[in-house]
């Protein structure tokens, strides 16, 4: 069973109105490995993650997690599955009615794995991992800078030590050093906790650091997949253009001249 992918997407299709966003996405994500998904802005990366999480229902195609078709799961099974998944949303999606520490430990509290008293200490511990002082725990999310919000979102995603973690642009909006720290944290999640990580990123240095595998999505399909280590010299014209950030190449931005 060791070669069953952790997550297996087949023919995933989703349109919003007449706009086709996903047009048959096929992707295997290996267990206990880190997958990086690349792709232009608006190419459907976030939608793919939301489909896997069950937040968006695809129009067609199958999603299997641990070999189980999620569409056939009962509500209880789905909830049990989500208990093991962590997600960092692109915009943070912090609960602004709750202080930071409660945000961070929200899942642990919801699952009653921790008392409210212990949650404050736990929050301080996880906040330290993302480079934030314990005092940040008492602030409200509205009082944080964008990069701090992102890191709190990250802390919230990993606090319950999930089995599968999705990171939607984990380092966007962070300074380079903090970005490297967060990359290290993601690598630790995979190597030390044995989690399966799926990250969306536009930052190639970061993609190389955190990824074992990489896949590129373009026009609703996976156009390439391979190792993340040599992004930029993959031999695939599209991926190399994207990784090097070149204007000329097979990917044409739809700009009006």
């Amino acid at each position, binding site marked *: 069973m060791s070669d069953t992918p952790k997550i297996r997407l087949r023919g995933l299709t989703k349109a919003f109105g007449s706009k086709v966003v996903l047009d048959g996405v096929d992707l295997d994500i290996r267990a206990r490995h880190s997958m990086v998904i690349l792709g232009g802005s608006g190419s459907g990366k976030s939608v793919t993650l939301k489909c896997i999480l069950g937040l968006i229902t695809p129009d067609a195609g199958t999603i299997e997690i641990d070999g189980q078709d999620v569409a056939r799961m009962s509500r209880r099974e789905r909830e049990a599955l989500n208990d093991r998944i962590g997600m960092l*949303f692109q915009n943070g999606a912090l*609960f602004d009615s709750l202080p930071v520490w409660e945000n961070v430990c929200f899942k642990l509290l*919801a699952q009653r794995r921790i008392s409210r008293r212990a949650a404050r200490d736990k929050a301080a511990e996880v906040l330290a991992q993302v480079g934030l002082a314990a005092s940040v725990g008492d602030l409200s999310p509205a009082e944080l800078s964008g990069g701090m919000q992102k890191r709190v979102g990250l802390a919230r995603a990993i606090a319950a030590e999930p089995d599968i973690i999705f990171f939607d642009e984990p380092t966007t909006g962070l300074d380079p050093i903090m970005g490297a720290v967060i990359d290290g944290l993601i690598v630790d999640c995979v190597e030390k906790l044995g989690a399966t990580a799926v990250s969306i990123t536009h930052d190639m240095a970061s993609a190389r650091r955190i990824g074992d595998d990489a896949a590129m999505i373009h026009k609703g399909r996976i156009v390439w997949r391979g190792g993340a280590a040599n992004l930029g010299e993959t031999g695939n014209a599209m991926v190399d253009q994207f990784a090097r950030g070149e204007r000329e190449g097979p990917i044409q931005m739809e700009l009006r001249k």
Partner: protein
Amino acid sequence: MDRTLDLTAALGRVVIGFLRSVGAIAIFAAEAISHLVRPPFHGRLFLKAFIEIAWFSLPVVALTAVFTGMVLALQSYTGFSRFNAEGAVANVVVLSITRELGPVLAGLMVAGRIGAAFAAEIGTMRVTDQIDALSTLSTNPMKYLVTPRILAGTLALPLLVVVADILGVMGGWLIGTQQLGFASGAYLKSTFDFLHAADVISGLIKAAVFGFVITLMGCWAGYQSGGGAQGVGRATTSAVVASSILILALDYILTAILFAR
């Protein structure tokens, strides 16, 4: 010919759209209610919503009730004095307040405050992915956001109406004794002599229904909203408009049912 067809088609679309919304709201309500009996329960959130509705609506509901009682006393005195029935003023005040105006006015005030607040709050959570985040954090968003609010609304409104009833009668008594020359004891005696328990209870039942509808429509509008800040604005407006209209329509229906002969 073509034009009549167009018209029929347009009308059909409106009717179908309306029925579809009614169905969707009914399913939404049923799901929210089903969480009342399925643990875990979010008592803390219920309490927060209850205080928000009952305590913070108190000033506006109280003011509305006092002034309404005062106006009722003045107006009915003018009317009844034309056929020498001034003695009925106290009765008219207490019956109007307990049966109709208490629940309806409190309902409309709360619809403006709470319906809008809930729609804006939940709508903002929707457009910033916070509702999606809840389901990735082992929390059912309906159970967490909607059920406690609807329960709080259904229980808080009757409480507010009890206060409105008392203050409304007080307003009438104030005008009756200070301006219209009634003796205090006589005014109060005729207030309570003709008051039946059914008058008060029917008003409280109405209040519970209104509280349910206000919070349901607020949560529904917020939950469905999309399209950024503008979408949240639309959700807020539609929550207040829909619940205000529903309060007036349901008031008629409930009156017809509760006092059917």
